[in-house]
């Protein structure tokens, strides 16, 4: 597979002229982004020692008065929201903007309406969907346009669906109209929508499986939400059908794809039935979260793979590693074999973490493996090679694979596609925030 440069694709497909810096790896992007936003976002995944070094560096850092006031959105937009509800985030930004400029910005309520957050103003940020979180981050930055000296955004092509690109361009234009610099940080190939196609003759074979969702009610909040009488449940329409792996769960930002996946994997509590019958029968569902860095819980390779399971995991890890390397030269450092990597003290890169977590999950041959936004934090070529490698390895073990993405270009790798759509609930369904519908054919697909 030939390497493409992000710059070639940027102008064709996302149609923008915003200055963009491209990086080969997530680690390089995050390092540059942290330097740009005055080091405010510490690394989390690199281990406890580096965490503390970062923490001390940021905490001890004096803030010069002349420093440019930086507006920014992080590569995971939730990381740049500092208060508990959308109203508080916007009110905080409004107060900061008003302090710095004589011309008061629009009030928070008005900005919330403009970004489609009017109904979610007093909802806990934890219970916002991905799409609402993205819109909130953009609304906050919109308010800060009045006073910011620069806007820097990390990986917008990853967290923003192409359908919403117009909103983002409007935001960037607002800054440019004030004479403020705007710059994007992106991974190579992140801004392409060209279909992902497997090489001739090496595409994954189809593998059938069945899934069933019945009377499913998802619990989105914490115990405290229940205590303070906040509605924190969502309902999912019934499904009982056969699918073919690799299957794509597709839909716009924040339509409930990840929620359903977490329910299937038992990661969130729910009422009702959510089960998958794979070739080996009804077994557990394993899930790789979008934010795999949080999923590691700062554990080292040795802690993620206990010694009794190391040999089995090593076989799958090395198979995935070789498969990725056959398809593409991985960006950044070379991928070391499992045995060498286990002895190596250097922290795992994002691609290595994803390979390791997939390997751990494939060892047990469960009902299905779900990859939530597998391209998050990877260059386009690495992402395609990684997903293809995981599907091959999983099918070889009789494990079907579900890929979750808001990017329609994954459809060309999938043998079945299910479209997710969030709908408002009727007044009789008090206590439910919304209802998730899952349909066979993508409606209005991009």
């Amino acid at each position, binding site marked *: 597979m030939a390497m493409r440069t992000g710059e070639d694709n940027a102008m064709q497909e996302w149609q923008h002229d915003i200055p963009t810096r491209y990086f080969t790896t997530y680690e390089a992007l995050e390092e540059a982004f942290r330097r740009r936003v005055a080091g405010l976002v510490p690394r989390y995944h690199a281990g406890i020692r580096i965490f503390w070094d970062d923490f001390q560096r940021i905490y001890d850092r004096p803030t010069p008065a002349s420093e440019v006031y930086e507006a920014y959105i992080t590569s995971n937009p939730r990381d740049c929201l500092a208060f508990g509800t959308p109203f508080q985030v916007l009110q*905080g930004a409004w*107060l900061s903007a008003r302090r710095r400029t004589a011309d008061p910005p629009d009030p928070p309520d008005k900005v919330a309406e403009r970004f489609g957050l009017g109904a979610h103003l007093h909802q806990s*940020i934890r219970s916002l969907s991905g799409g609402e979180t993205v819109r909130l981050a953009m609304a906050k930055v919109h308010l800060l346009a009045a006073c910011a000296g620069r806007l820097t955004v990390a990986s917008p092509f990853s967290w923003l669906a192409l359908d919403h690109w117009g909103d983002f361009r409007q935001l960037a234009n607002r800054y440019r109209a004030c004479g403020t610099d705007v710059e994007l940080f992106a991974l190579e190939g992140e801004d392409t929508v060209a279909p992902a196609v497997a090489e001739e003759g090496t595409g994954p074979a189809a593998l059938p499986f069945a899934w069933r969702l019945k009377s499913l009610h998802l619990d989105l909040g*914490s115990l405290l939400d229940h*205590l303070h009488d906040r509605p924190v449940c969502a309902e999912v329409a019934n499904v009982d059908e056969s699918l073919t792996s690799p299957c794509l769960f597709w839909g716009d930002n924040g339509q409930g794809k990840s929620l359903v996946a977490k329910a299937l994997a038992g*990661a969130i509590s729910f009422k009702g039935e959510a089960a998958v019958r794979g070739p080996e029968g009804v077994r557990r569902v394993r899930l790789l979260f979008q934010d795999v860095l*949080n999923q590691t819980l700062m554990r080292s390779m040795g802690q993620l793979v206990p010694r009794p399971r190391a040999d089995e995991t090593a076989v799958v890890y090395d198979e995935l590693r070789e498969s990725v390397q056959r398809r593409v030269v991985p960006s950044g450092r070379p991928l070391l074999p499992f045995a060498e990597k286990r002895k190596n003290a250097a922290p795992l890169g994002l691609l290595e973490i994803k390979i390791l977590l997939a390997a751990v999950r494939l060892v047990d041959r469960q009902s299905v493996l779900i990859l939530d936004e597998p391209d998050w934090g990877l260059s386009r070529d690495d992402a395609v090679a990684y997903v293809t490698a995981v599907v091959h390895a999983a099918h070889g073990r009789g494990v079907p694979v579900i890929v979750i993405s808001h990017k329609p270009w994954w459809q060309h790798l999938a043998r079945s596609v299910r479209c997710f759509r969030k709908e408002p609930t009727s007044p009789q369904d008090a206590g439910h925030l919304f209802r998730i519908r899952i349909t066979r054919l993508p409606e209005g697909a991009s």
Partner: protein
Amino acid sequence: MNSVMRLTGLAILAVPVFTGLALFPESRPALPGVAWLSFGYAFLVLIGIGALCGRALLANALAVTVLILAPVIYGGATVSWLLTVLGGTSPEAAGAMHGAHYVRLTLNMLSVIPLALALVASIPFDRLELRLLRTERGIASGEKYLLMFIRVFHHTVYFVIPNILEVMREETLLRMAAEKPGHRSGLHRFQIVGRRLTAGLVQIGISSICAALRFIPLWAREIDDLPRRTPQHHRSQT
């Protein structure tokens, strides 16, 4: 039930145990040195928390209580008993010397810890944060400290703990730790399971502390950036 009623109910329940008031000092003993009413009070507190805050919160508060209580009580009682026996007292007499103290301590912890957790959980911190930010006149220095405290509390309760729980559930971490380690038997197997459980819990503890602290510099900067209230201005609602 609104927050004020819930907090009032919990505060009434908490008066005896938090103030140390002996409401029924002369009641009949259930065990030597432990009154029936001590059991009754602990039971009443748990029933009260269940009624005021719900069974789910009670179950979680009890789980936390037992995690704290078990090593403190068993460890403390064992060490005291051993020291007394080593001092020349017979094992039966040594048990009788400290038994009542540890039973009372257990009952005390069964009341204090769930009550403290329920009280903290019942405070509407989000509304407090909202109230502090609903201003056009700026925010006082003390309010900024309070905002910072609320932010860390919120992040821990709504992000850190749920994220860790999601990962643990997906991996069924505790079940894996308790899996039978091969063909080992007896004490050796127990040691391996214990080591795995301890290592897992320590790792989760470290991860949760780091996750809770992770964004403090970012929040500190954003909160510090809010306009400071000038003395002549009064708070008003937007």
